[in-house]
């Protein structure tokens, strides 16, 4: 126990009270892992084992029931999935389109609104309340709400277009308009998130570089382009990272507006929707696991690219 007595010394130099029971001393000395381990074990158990299993399933022909006999097929599923131009590659394309377009709008609009809100003004509190509403609204309910608004016959959207003499649009019901419409819904719900993050970044910036540029005679646009934006870049990348991961995994809105399989023509079938359908509508566990492993690799790759960029921006 001699080692314990020395490691237990507090930074101030005072020792622990001598009447502390043994288990409390032990807990005190090992608090680092005692505190951290339960959460880590919980998450790891729910991730590592399933992920390992998914990786294994992706190498088998499991289907129907996970309990059913399945055979090891090597990389056959991967060959099948990667050569599947019917469902897999279109789903990859939709996932990429959804994520990139939604992110683009969310960051540009989010930046514009954050700049509007930057300097204090009367009524700022109410604008912030409005911004919070879409963020906390239940995504499935939001999907249902837009489904009514975008209904081709009775929806508000077409009524409003009617006032301007524009004919009704199919919105969610159209084979080519469904994906853009769901992107619009995502932008509506999550642009406020980008606004909040960028606003937090803006308010933490010091005023001095701004003032200096102003004295040097820089215009508003020049100040934004050459002073504010570079200083804000790390925050922008945090926002892109956080929103990007969630946009890649979007499920609630797509399921709520278009149902299973992403609509009759799979018009909003992203990788997540596709994998969900393979797993729980068709019980194709082998193939769905393959899709999921590939999806996972795409996400890790995207994150890696962005964090590399972030480290670059910091330098």
């Amino acid at each position, binding site marked *: 126990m001699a080692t314990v007595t020395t490691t237990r010394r*507090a930074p*101030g130099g005072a020792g622990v*009270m001598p009447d*502390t029971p043994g288990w409390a001393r032990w*807990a*005190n000395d090992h*608090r*680092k892992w005692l*505190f951290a381990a*339960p*959460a*880590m074990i*919980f*998450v790891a158990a729910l*991730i590592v084992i*399933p*992920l390992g*299993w*998914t990786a294994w399933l992706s190498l088998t022909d499991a289907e129907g029931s*996970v*309990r059913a006999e399945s055979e090891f097929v090597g990389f056959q599923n991967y060959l099948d999935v990667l050569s599947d131009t019917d469902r897999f590659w279109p789903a990859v394309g939709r996932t990429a389109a959804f994520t990139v377009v939604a992110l683009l709008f969310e960051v540009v609009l989010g930046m514009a609104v954050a700049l*509007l809100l930057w300097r204090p*003004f009367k009524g700022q509190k109410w*604008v912030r309340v409005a*911004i*919070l*509403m879409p*963020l*906390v*609204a*239940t995504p*499935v309910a939001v999907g*249902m*709400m837009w*489904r*009514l*608004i975008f209904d081709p016959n009775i929806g*508000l959207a077409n009524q409003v277009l009617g006032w301007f003499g524009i004919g009704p649009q199919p919105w969610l019901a159209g084979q080519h308009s469904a994906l853009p419409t769901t992107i619009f819904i995502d932008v*509506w719900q999550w642009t406020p*998130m980008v606004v*909040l*993050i960028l606003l*937090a*970044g803006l308010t933490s910036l010091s005023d001095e570089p701004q003032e200096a540029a102003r004295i040097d005679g820089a215009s508003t646009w020049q100040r934004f382009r050459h002073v504010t934006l570079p200083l804000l870049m790390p925050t922008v*990348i*945090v*926002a892109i990272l956080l929103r990007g991961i969630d946009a*890649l*995994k979007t499920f*609630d809105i797509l399921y709520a507006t278009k149902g299973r399989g992403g609509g009759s023509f799979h018009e909003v079938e992203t990788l*997540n929707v596709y*994998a969900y359908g393979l*797993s*729980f509508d068709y019980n194709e*566990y082998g193939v*769905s696991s393959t899709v*999921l*492993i590939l999806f*996972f690799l795409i*996400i890790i790759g995207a994150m890696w690219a962005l964090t590399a960029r972030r480290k670059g921006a910091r330098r």
Partner: protein
Amino acid sequence: MKASPSYRVFRVVALVVVVLALVTPLFWMIAASFKTNVDIYDTGKALVFSPTLDNYATVLKQSHYVQFIGNSLWVAFAATVLSLLLGVPAAYSMSRFNMRKSALVVLMARVIPGVSLLVPWYYVFSNLQLVGGFTVLILSHMFVSLPLIVYIMMGFFDGLPQELEEAALVDGLTHIGAFRRVTLPLSVPGIATAGILSFIFSWNNFMFALVLSGADTKTLPVAIFDFVGYASIDWGGLMAAATVVTLPIMVIALFVQKYVVSGLTAGATKG
């Protein structure tokens, strides 16, 4: 810096547009929940209509909604409390001992697509006879809450001065005693932020409950689909159901907006 008059006019107009764009759809949902299905189909009655509570009566009577509200409350509450119990000490340790790699293990849960875990979970939990019960729902929602709480609390503990704890050690407290009697009481605002956000995200979660809940343990986001039939949709009922899910969480957020905002933007300014 003083804004020019023309910019101020522009800003007012722009902000009115932003607020209207964000609030009108929600207003429309709530308005439709007070309309009969006939009025919803009548474009002439978009704004002027005689409100009815029939949809809410349908929702509350027909589909065990009261029970589903209770389920949602229980799952979100239990997941939040348990995640706080696991997450707050973990975040403390990870912040104090700079365990960034360990933190990454927990934060991985934010990155992984939920579907890739659901098949194995479903298999394991159905073998344990747990699918359709509350345990598995609470565990799966903890999987959403815990990383969120660890992320928020790590940032909070990073900003808490260590000197206060050191003073407590000099006064003869153990490290754990100092954590319990000094750090925890000081962390109440952070814990409130993390708890509220965890509750909101758990309340809104859909995919896990879609697969893992049973007829008696359905949560509200899943129960909404009862109003979507194959052939037709009961729009009034659907909007009432959507309002019942969304409104409570929006009202809570209104009252505690400071915490919600600081939770959502946690870590944002550090880059």
